[in-house]
């Protein structure tokens, strides 16, 4: 009873600490996003208006006044600390204001339109890459694996080193341009509207295969290398020798002893890799003109639409922080040793 109380209190303490860390991430990130534009001394609204004026050939005279009006509307004329207060209040309510380029469309609706595409693509890809990569790594680091497996080591190493978008460019050229097996761009065919029919979902899958393949292939190597390293390290451990001495079957040794232990650091790496997967996928989406967050971010950068960039980056960081928090908190369920460690 007493022991259980202590364990529970440490576990809640651990969860509490992780939650504080999550809040810290959000606070630091949002403060950085607030401060950097101020440090550079540029005015996003004025910049944007100037750009529009250049394109449209507006009169220069009314521009200053227009910028001032916009600045008042967005509260950019108040003292910094007041702006910071407003900014934080807006962020906490997930209110990022209107897009400058697609005024009065809100940043939220722009992000809302594209988030499902990225979420769908990345969750499936991460799952496949994690599973396949980890299994490949486990086999590579297992001494009783067949020898021919060693031949896949060099290709995997190469794939782990190159960024997703280089692979995307190669795949689109070979399989979409030359062989014409897959569509060149988009998330669905040009003449259709998104709906829930079976044909449409087939179309979505067909469009997602190439971008998905670039992400899966390029991130697979990362998981394989990590897993291989852990498998090799575990080889000489006492529990492996003991299990082998007991005369357990090979598959049991492999799955229940070697893989079960080697997979733990992979889970921690999963939390850290989510950011890499997202940022890596941005250019893949751009290359395939996939209607996801990455493409929306790219368009916002091209149009100098600062509120969209800011809102998007904030939401992505919150999502990553939350995912890290969830993985960290569920980790003790996988590895009971963690919950007893102070300050985990």
């Amino acid at each position, binding site marked *: 009873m007493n022991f259980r109380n202590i364990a529970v209190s440490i576990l809640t303490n651990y969860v509490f600490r992780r939650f504080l860390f999550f809040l810290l991430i959000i606070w630091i*990130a949002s403060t950085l996003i607030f401060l950097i534009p101020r440090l550079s001394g540029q005015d996003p609204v004025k910049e944007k208006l100037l750009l529009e004026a250049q394109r449209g050939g507006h009169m220069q005279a009314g521009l200053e006044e227009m910028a001032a009006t916009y600045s008042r509307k967005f509260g950019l004329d108040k003292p910094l600390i007041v702006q910071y207060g407003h900014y934080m209040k807006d962020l906490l309510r997930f209110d990022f204001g209107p897009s400058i380029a697609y005024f009065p469309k809100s940043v939220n609706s722009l992000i809302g339109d594209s988030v499902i595409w990225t979420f769908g693509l990345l969750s499936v890809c991460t799952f496949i890459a994690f599973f396949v990569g980890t299994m490949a790594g486990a086999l590579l680091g297992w001494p009783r694996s067949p020898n021919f497996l060693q031949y896949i080591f060099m290709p995997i190493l190469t794939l782990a080193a190159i960024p997703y978008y280089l692979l995307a460019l190669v795949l689109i050229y070979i399989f979409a341009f030359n062989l014409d097996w897959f569509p*060149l761009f988009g998330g669905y065919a040009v003449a259709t509207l998104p709906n829930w029919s079976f044909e449409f979902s087939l179309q979505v899958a067909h469009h997602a295969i190439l971008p998905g393949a670039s992400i899966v292939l390029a991130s697979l190597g990362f998981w394989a290398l990590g897993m291989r390293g852990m498998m090799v390290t575990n080889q000489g451990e006492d529990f492996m020798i003991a299990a082998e001495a007991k005369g357990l079957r090979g598959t049991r040794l492999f799955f229940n002893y070697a893989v079960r232990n080697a997979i733990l650091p992979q889970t921690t790496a999963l939390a850290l890799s989510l950011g890499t997967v997202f940022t890596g996928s941005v250019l893949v989406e751009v290359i395939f003109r996939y209607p996801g967050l990455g493409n929306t971010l790219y368009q916002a950068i091209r149009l100098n639409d600062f509120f969209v960039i800011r809102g998007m980056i904030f939401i992505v960081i919150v999502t990553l922080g939350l995912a890290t928090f969830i993985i960290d908190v569920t980790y003790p369920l996988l590895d009971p040793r963690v919950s007893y460690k102070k300050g985990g």
Partner: protein
Amino acid sequence: MTKKTFRRRVEDFLRYVRRNPSLGVGILLLLSLLLFVVIGYATYEVERYRPLSGGPDLAPFQTDNYHPEEFPNGYPLGTDRQGRDIMAVMIAGIPLTLQIGLIAGLIGITVGTLLAFISAYYGGVVDQVISTIVDVGLTIPGILILIVIAVNLQSGLTVPQMGLAVSAVAWVWPARTIRAQVLVMREQLYVEIARLSGTSGFSIMFKEMLPNLAPYIGASLVGSVASAILASVGLEALGLGPFDSPTLGMTIYWNIQFSSILHGMWWWFGPPILVLAMIFVGLFLMTAGLDEWSNPRLRKRV
């Protein structure tokens, strides 16, 4: 370190490379790129990396209608939509991209090492603050912060400025890994002996431990150069790079911008992809190889 032991170290290293192929292959890949650049600058008209140097959209060795007499055989790697000679772009672009990586990597590793030592040396609250900031930095993808920086600096970044910008996020990973190494090393016997013999903490850190960590720091330098290049090429491909410079990332950007793939212009997107793959694989193999070299425990295993 006397001259002789230094020479012996070099010889040992060379002998070791033969047993550690990934290090050798990595160095070879990068050396071949450097050789390409040196020969290119010596023999080729590199100035033709500028737009309008030749006619647009020329395939390799296709006759240039704009300069039929001057270039009867065209250009070895053709030209892009805006008339840049791709061969010249590659020769000029490789050192620029490496320069960005080196600037950011060197600053990142210096700041990271300093923070790691300060963190491990002072311990307590200082250590906790630095470690927490580093942990936050690891969770927030650096490239997102870089996008915010670059969007606000958009008016004309130069190549060195690009390196400086990337270095803003390049110190996080070195700080984390080198701190872990310092903490392990702090417990070793020779540090203990130095401490017992009354050496000051500061000189233990920088005279005893830093030289012993040098190989490890060297390995992390290669790693952080690689991630700096990755970040810079990513930024450039998004259209946030130095528009006047023919870096590899800007070449990728122009490729995306003008949909070179949909036009089947393989001579335009092929070379930067190949060169970038060589750089990334080369640096990756070098990092793995140097890791192995600097960490004898790994050395035995492989």
